[in-house]
């Protein structure tokens, strides 16, 4: 009669500790990452998107509320800040690429950044999306760890911001080629920079797989856009409609 007790006890113990949430998060990401590598880094097979779906389905099956899951998974979440600081290293490595191109690159960065905000906010607002969605559009072209921090400070949803950032990255990585070919863009540094401004980390790994120079400039664009976004978006927020 007592034989069935241990399993039940183990279950109660595990679901009360952060371990279950951590195992779930890391295993789901690992599955996503393996599939991504097997697909030869096809941007559509995005490891984060796969991991989110797996975790969401598991929470549903385990009947575990999201807040309870997050209590455990916050130990992974916490590292976002540390990862943000460490973005200084790829930016520093890319800085030599600025030489002789500072003015075009900075002008393009500002123009691209403003376009990303006002087109996304404008279209979603005009089509009647609610405030949480419109707010999460504001920083979605900035790399997700920074975008979430910015959103949090401004009172927008970090969750929706992260989701929109990931979807933007995937779309950018897939569509960039067609847009850039359509515009007759030939120089790798220009192609890479445009992808990095629009599609941050996911665009950057795509750019690296196409051409190293494109990757370097994409990484530089992502870093600079991150810094610019964190500084400028709070100042712009007052001019963005609906808030």
């Amino acid at each position, binding site marked *: 009669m007592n034989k069935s007790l241990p399993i039940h006890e183990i279950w109660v113990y595990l679901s009360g500790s952060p371990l279950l949430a951590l195992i779930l*998060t890391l295993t789901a990401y690992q599955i996503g*990452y393996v599939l991504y590598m097997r697909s030869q880094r096809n941007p559509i097979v995005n*490891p*984060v998107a796969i991991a*989110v779906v797996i*975790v969401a389905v598991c929470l549903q099956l385990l009947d575990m509320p*999201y807040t309870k899951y997050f209590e455990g*998974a916050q130990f*992974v979440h916490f590292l*976002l*800040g*540390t990862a943000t*600081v*460490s*973005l*200084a*290293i*790829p930016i520093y490595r890319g800085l030599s690429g600025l030489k002789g191109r500072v003015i*075009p690159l900075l002008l393009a960065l500002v*123009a*691209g950044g403003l*376009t*990303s905000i006002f*087109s*996304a906010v404008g*279209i979603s607002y005009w*089509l009647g999306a*609610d405030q*949480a*969605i419109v707010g999460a559009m504001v920083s979605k*072209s900035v*790399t*997700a*760890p*920074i975008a*979430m*921090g910015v959103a*949090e400070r401004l009172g927008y949803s970090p969750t*929706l911001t*992260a989701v*929109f950032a990931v979807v*933007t990255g995937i*779309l950018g990585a897939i*569509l*960039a080629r067609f*847009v*850039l070919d359509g515009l007759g*863009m*030939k*120089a790798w540094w*220009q*192609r890479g*920079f*445009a992808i990095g*401004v*629009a*599609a941050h*980390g996911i665009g950057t790994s795509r750019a690296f797989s196409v051409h190293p120079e494109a990757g370097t400039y994409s990484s530089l664009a992502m870093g600079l856009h991150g810094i610019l976004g964190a*500084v400028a978006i*709070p100042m712009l927020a007052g001019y963005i409609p609906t808030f």
Partner: protein
Amino acid sequence: MIPGLVHILLWQGAGELVSHFILPHIPGPVIGLVLLLGFLALRGPVPDSMALVSDAFSQHLGLLFVPAATGVILFLPQLRQHAWAVVLALFSSVILTIAVTAVVLKVTSPGGDSE
């Protein structure tokens, strides 16, 4: 790897302090990033142990936002209701952003789009 991690955590701490006391509208880690960038610009090459930490983070940056992004399950009804607005906004915005960035680069570069 540990010295690099300690180094980065200290810059994060410095960033949090500056954010808390001086620049409350900028997230602490971003200030830490800028401070570390300034430090590297002054003191030269990236230490190996720091490069190891940074490369590990950049390779698996996505893992770190899985917990927050999973919160999307709380927004599903809202997203379904505004699906068209979300899809159109994300699609058009990314295409416009790539196009505008590229065209500005092409027009303002002295050599046009030559390599």
